[in-house]
């Protein structure tokens, strides 16, 4: 029984990890919380639905289109919402407003297109569950877990081993200094948004598979935020660990309290956690320079 809970938790956690990592990427480099991220997930999930999934293509094309759509939307957001603010050196509050405005815009556009109706991705898998010694695992969960792991692995490789990754780390540490060292920080920021958008696309698609497609799908982004807070804002590893913990905590709460209360209890846990360890698990609390 407890193994079942663990498995469910990890399955949920791996989707949360995708949300959290995309959010943390942008936070890491621009030091603000990108609230348009949730709506980006919605837009890309719907784009994939209308362009590919509803026409009967399989999982892989759907995921690809969703990821590409996420990247495009994210890049658009960077250009429209954040570029000028960054160049003007405006206070971070403007990033915040810009991001929630973009969120409103995306969600509004999706609502105009689909109204308040529900959509479902077609079933991508013929046999939907596997049974291992009493533990039921749905096939989609396994595939999601594998794809999430691959995506995170590729990201880790890019950040740790490539030139782009090094530039990305440099810009996130000190944008101006990086610029002076000949790094094109605008380009790096664009790349970050693209990466973040890809994760938004994947996460949106997975959420669509797990639940239903609605214009408010993006509000599940709150799970990613909570994961980030638990893991430590700005830490990529922390975001993943936080997401797994949140997934498992939720699965346990689900078992004990039932579905409606799980959200509430996990929120309370996060609040307590913040009181005890505000810097998060990774402990890389971003500090303002003195």
């Amino acid at each position: 029984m407890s193994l079942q809970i663990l498995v469910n938790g990890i399955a949920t956690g791996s989707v949360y990890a995708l949300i959290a990592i995309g959010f943390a990427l942008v936070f890491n480099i621009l030091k603000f919380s990108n609230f348009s991220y949730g709506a980006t997930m919605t837009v890309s999930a719907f784009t994939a639905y209308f362009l590919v999934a509803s026409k009967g293509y399989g999982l892989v094309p759907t995921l690809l289109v969703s990821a590409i759509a996420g990247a495009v939307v994210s890049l658009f957001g960077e250009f429209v919402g954040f570029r000028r603010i960054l160049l003007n050196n405006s206070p971070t509050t403007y990033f915040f407003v810009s991001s929630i405005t973009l969120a409103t815009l995306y969600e509004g556009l999706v609502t105009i297109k689909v109204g308040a109706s529900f959509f479902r991705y077609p079933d991508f898998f013929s046999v939907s569950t596997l049974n291992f010694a009493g533990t039921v695992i749905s096939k989609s969960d396994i595939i999601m877990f594998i794809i999430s792991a691959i995506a995170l692995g590729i990201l880790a490789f890019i950040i740790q081993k490539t030139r782009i990754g090094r530039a990305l780390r440099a810009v996130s540490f000190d944008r101006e200094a990086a610029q002076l060292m000949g790094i094109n920080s605008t380009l790096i920021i664009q790349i970050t948004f693209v990466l973040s958008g890809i994760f938004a696309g994947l996460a949106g698609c997975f959420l669509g598979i797990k639940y239903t497609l609605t214009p408010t799908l993006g509000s599940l982004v709150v799970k990613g935020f909570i994961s980030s807070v638990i893991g430590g804002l700005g830490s990529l590893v922390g975001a993943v660990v936080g997401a797994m913990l949140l997934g498992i905590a939720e699965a346990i709460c689900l078992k004990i309290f039932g579905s409606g209360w799980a959200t509430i209890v996990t929120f309370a846990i996060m609040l307590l956690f913040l009181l005890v360890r505000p810097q998060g698990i990774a402990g890389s609390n971003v500090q303002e320079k003195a």
Partner: protein
Amino acid sequence: MALFINVLTQVCITLVAVCGIYVLTGLTGMFSLGSAAFMAIGAYASGLITIKLGLPVIVSFILAILMAVAIGFIIGLPVVKLRRDYISLVTLGFGESIAQLLIQMNYLTGGANGLLGIPRKVKWPIALASAIVSITLVAMFKRSKYGRQCIAVKSDELAAEAMGINSSRIKMIAFLLSCALTAFAGCLYSFYMGYVDPGIFGWKKSADWVIMVFFGGVNSLTGSIFGATILSALPQFMRSLRDYRYVVYAIMVILIINFKPNGLLGEWELTPTHIKETFKKIKNKFNKNSKES
């Protein structure tokens, strides 16, 4: 006429809430995506107290506001010491939890169907008076030492601390005042509409308020009031455009943020000094123009 009075009342209720957002966002530079949840607390708590306990409206208002402030304190406690991002993230999570909670406690709140049968005691004069009182209170607050300290904390927290300002405390005060005002707006709302449902208190509503504040000018109370009035009145008159409302808002705000980052009014306030200065400026411009010609 009925439409006009309806719009007036709704605008006034929004103004009360926007006053709260102004204190939090305009003065202190913090963003809450859970303000609407405090409105929900106000709306449900006051409604329930009156329905279930039969207490007079005023008493239920006061109790509801106190309850919102108490909950705000618990939410605020861990976050006021941290970076400002935390308050946005935590309040967003809080907002979603409250929405869930209202649905889950359906024996009390009527669940997703909403709470019905609240006496419709709030008419437009009460709403108007409440808006005026709230605006006055916030204007007084802005000109007091608290308002100054809020702006100092927003501008430079470290320097503010170096001037003996306890920035966590100031942030908490601003947050609680904002909770109280939004809860008050919630009380007014439920007793005006006669029913409340959990659907309208999502993060979208909070985001809507922040957008209103930024539209008119985040540093100016006058601007925020102005922005809120326009943005909440317009869609009421153009019901057919309802779906496009958010899109149109969003585009307007993106334009403003990119090209006029201080909002329409900047720091301008409706006070004698500012009006005098503006007149002087116009006069100077006029004199210059006439000299040139």
